């Protein structure tokens, strides 16, 4: 890297943004009782919602209940946010409820997070350009699933909502019942931890 200035994080448009045009029509049709419209919405988001709830023991149940709950409460969706954001909130609540029931002492989303000296990375190695291209799609997908699965739930969920599902900091805070500073400190920890774990796969000279 020759310049100290970085380009903004390159994100491709979310499917929910690309297809937003017909989304409100589908939601309206589903609200009016058109079951196939709701099934189209489920088909559109099932992979993303499953990704959000996976890495947990009750992933499949959480996903199912999220879609069922969404259908049940569809009339209360007023369209103030994207349908997808609303759905993500429901899925997160279902997943957290299951996780808390199973492991009540492990999951505390609101404990203090230290953002001190220990966060300065010790291992600093360059990755070179397009490190992900060194892996085949399935292999990359397995790596990403594994490294994100190794994150503690309070950090993983914030990273998933903010950086994968691309909710805003405020939306993430609202969905998780956290303050904005708490979301930011968890996000920072999660990003640094993932960066450090990915080092072993992406550092320069790590050839497949």
């Amino acid at each position: 890297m020759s310049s100290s200035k970085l380009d903004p994080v390159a994100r491709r448009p979310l499917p929910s943004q690309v297809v937003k045009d017909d989304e409100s029509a589908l939601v309206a049709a589903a609200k009016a009782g058109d079951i196939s419209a709701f099934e189209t919405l489920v088909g559109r988001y099932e992979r993303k919602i499953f990704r959000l709830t996976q890495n947990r023991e009750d992933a499949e149940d959480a996903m199912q209940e999220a879609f069922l709950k969404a259908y049940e409460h569809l009339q209360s969706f007023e369209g103030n946010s994207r349908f997808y954001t609303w759905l993500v909130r429901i899925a997160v609540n279902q997943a957290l409820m299951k996780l808390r029931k199973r492991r009540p002492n492990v999951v505390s989303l609101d404990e203090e997070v230290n953002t001190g000296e220990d966060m300065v990375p010790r291992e600093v190695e360059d990755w070179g350009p397009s490190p992900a291209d060194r892996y085949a799609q399935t292999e990359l997908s397995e790596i990403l699933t594994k490294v994100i699965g190794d994150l503690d739930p309070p950090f993983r969920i914030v990273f998933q909502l903010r950086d994968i599902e691309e909710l805003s900091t405020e939306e993430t805070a609202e969905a998780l019942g956290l303050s904005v500073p708490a979301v930011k400190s968890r996000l920072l920890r999660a990003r640094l931890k993932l960066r450090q774990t990915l080092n072993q796969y992406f550092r320069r000279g790590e050839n497949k």
Partner: protein
Amino acid sequence: MKCKTIITELADYLDEALDPILRASIEEHLGKCKDCRIVVDTCKQTIEIFCNSEPAPLPQTTRLRLHEALAKRLRRVRA
């Protein structure tokens, strides 16, 4: 500016949520400190790799069970 400050401001820096003065002093530091530059760049790549990754298809049985559960509930609502 210390390397520790770069780390504490990293999330807001990558999200372009810093005021211009702080942003400029971070960029000045990045121009001089190779380690921080690498950390910032690889952290940015971490976000890009995750947010650009396709979610894996649902396992067939999972998908089937989801749509069966939906069909059952939807039929009940309609009845």
